[in-house]
C-alpha cells in the first residue's frame, strides 16, 4: 500500500563520530518510495558510515531516522531487516562454508518461511541470477563476483523487502555479472516496487540507473539532484579534486 504522506526513508540531521573524527555531520536526506537513489562522494566522505547508521550497525550521536513513518535509529540490525530493509557489503558477506542454496535459505528461515516456500523462491532467484548450476557449491569456492551476486540475490529472499541498501555492488565484478545485478535491481524496482539506495563509484552506471544522486564530502551532504545537476555544482567538483 502506498502512503506518500511522508518520505519513505527520512534521515534527519544525523551525526556520527568516531572519537575526534566526524564521519557524518548533520546529514539529512529523504528518499521516496520506489526511487533508485545513488550515494556518491570521494573516498572517506562517509557513505558507508551513513548506510551503517541507516541499517543499525551504528547508532547516531545526533539525529533520527524514519522508515515508512516509523523511527528506526537505535534499533538493532536484525529488527531493521525485519522491517524490510536489507543491505549488502562492499566485500561480499556470505557464509563461506555453506552452499549457495543454504546461503539463500537463511534469511527465509529467519523470517519463518516454510522450507518448501523458501526453496521454491530461492531456486527461482538462483535461476534468474544464472547460479542454479552452483547451488550445491560451497560459497568459498565462488569467485568474488559470484559471491557479490549471491549476496545481492540473497537479500531478495526477504519477502517483506522494501528498501535495499547496497554498498558498491558493481566493484570488481565481471561485466556479465554486473549485467545480472543491474537487471535484478531494475526488475525488483519495477515489478515489486522496491526502493534502492546504492553507493557506487561507477559514475556511468549511477547516472543511468539512478533517478537522483546524493553527494557526500567530508561527512557532509553537499549536493543532491540528477547526475548532470550535481556534476555542475562547483562544490562537487572541489570535493572530487581533493584540494
Amino acid at each position, binding site marked *: 500500500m502506498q502512503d506518500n504522506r511522508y518520505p519513505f526513508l527520512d534521515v534527519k540531521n544525523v551525526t556520527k563520530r568516531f572519537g575526534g573524527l566526524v564521519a557524518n555531520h548533520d546529514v539529512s536526506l529523504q528518499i521516496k518510495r520506489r526511487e533508485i537513489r545513488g550515494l556518491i562522494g570521494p573516498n572517506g566522505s562517509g557513505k558507508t558510515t551513513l548506510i551503517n547508521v541507516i541499517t543499525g550497525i551504528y547508532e547516531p550521536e545526533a539525529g533520527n531516522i524514519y522508515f515508512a513513518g516509523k523511527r528506526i535509529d537505535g534499533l538493532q540490525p536484525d529488527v531493521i531487516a525485519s522491517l524490510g530493509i536489507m543491505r549488502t557489503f562492499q566485500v561480499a558477506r556470505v557464509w563461506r562454508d555453506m552452499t549457495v542454496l543454504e546461503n539463500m535459505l537463511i534469511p527465509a528461515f529467519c523470517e519463518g518461511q516454510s522450507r518448501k516456500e523458501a526453496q521454491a523462491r530461492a531456486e527461482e532467484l538462483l535461476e534468474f541470477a544464472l547460479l542454479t548450476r552452483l547451488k550445491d557449491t560451497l560459497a568459498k569456492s565462488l569467485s568474488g563476483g559470484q559471491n557479490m551476486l549471491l549476496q545481492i540475490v540473497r537479500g531478495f529472499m526477504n519477502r517483506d523487502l522494501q528498501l535495499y541498501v547496497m554498498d558498491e555492488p558493481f*566493484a*570488481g565484478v565481471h561485466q556479465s555479472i554486473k549485467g545480472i545485478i543491474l537487471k535484478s535491481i531494475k526488475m525488483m524496482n519495477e515489478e515489486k516496487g522496491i526502493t534502492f539506495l546504492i553507493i557506487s563509484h561507477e559514475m556511468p552506471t549511477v547516472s543511468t540507473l539512478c533517478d537522483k544522486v546524493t553527494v557526500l564530502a567530508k561527512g557532509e551532504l553537499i549536493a543532491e539532484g540528477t*547526475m548532470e545537476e550535481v556534476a555542475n555544482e562547483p562544490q562537487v567538483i572541489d570535493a572530487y*579534486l581533493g584540494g
Partner: protein
Amino acid sequence: MSMLSMENITAGYVEEIDVLNDVSLEVNERAITGIIGANGAGKSTILKTIFGFLRPRRGKIIFQGQEIQGLQPYQLKQMGISYMLQEYSTFPQLSIQDNLLLGAWTFRNDKKLVNERLSEIYQFFPVLSERRAEKATYLSGGYLRMLSVGKEIMSKPKLLMIDEPSVGLAPNIVTEIYDLLIRVAQQGTTILIVDQNIMKALDVSDYMYLLDMGQVKQGGPKKDFEEDIREIIKVSLMAKD
C-alpha cells in the same frame, strides 16, 4: 627521456576481470609523473603490476631499455625500483634507525656505503636523526610516512613509486609530505605517484595520467590538465555507460 614505459598492459587479480585494460604510459626520467582517477580505476594496480606483484596478461613493461614484466619484486628492487605502499610499511617495534637500515638490505654487507646513505638520510630528515633510537610505533602518521620515504630512498632508487602519500594525514602534514617528495625528485630520483588528491598531484607532478575503469582517458604534461581540470572532473562524473 623515458625511464619506464608500459605498453598495452592488461592485468587483473582474478580470471576474466581485467583491472587494467590496454594501459600505456611513460614515466620520464628525473620528473614526477602523477596518476589520478577515482577509487577502483586501477591506479594502485599499475604500481603493483610494475613491481611484479601482479603479472600482466598482455603487454610489456620496459625499464631503462629492458623488459621487466614477470620479474620478481626483489629483482626489480635490485634494478633500482622502489615501491612505497599505501599502507604503512615500517616495522613498529624496530627503532627508526633499524627501519632505515632495512631499506639498505640489498647492499647490507657494504658497511661503508650503508653508513654513508644513513648520514645522507639524516641530513635530509633531521627529525629522524634526532629520534633515531625511538621505536617507530611512537611516530605519528606524518613521521611514519616520512620514515617510509627515508627507508625507500636508502637504496637511492632510480624510480620511486608511491601509492597515495597523503591518505589519512592531516592537511598541514600532507603539505610537508609533498614538499618532501619534491626535494627527493630534485635530488635526481624519478617519481611515479598515485593519488586521489588531484590538486596535490597536480601541484607536484610534471606529467599526469587520468585513469578511469582501467583505461587511460588522458595523459600528458601537467599544463594540459591544469587548464581544464574542473572540466575533466565534470566530464568524468557525467560519463555514460
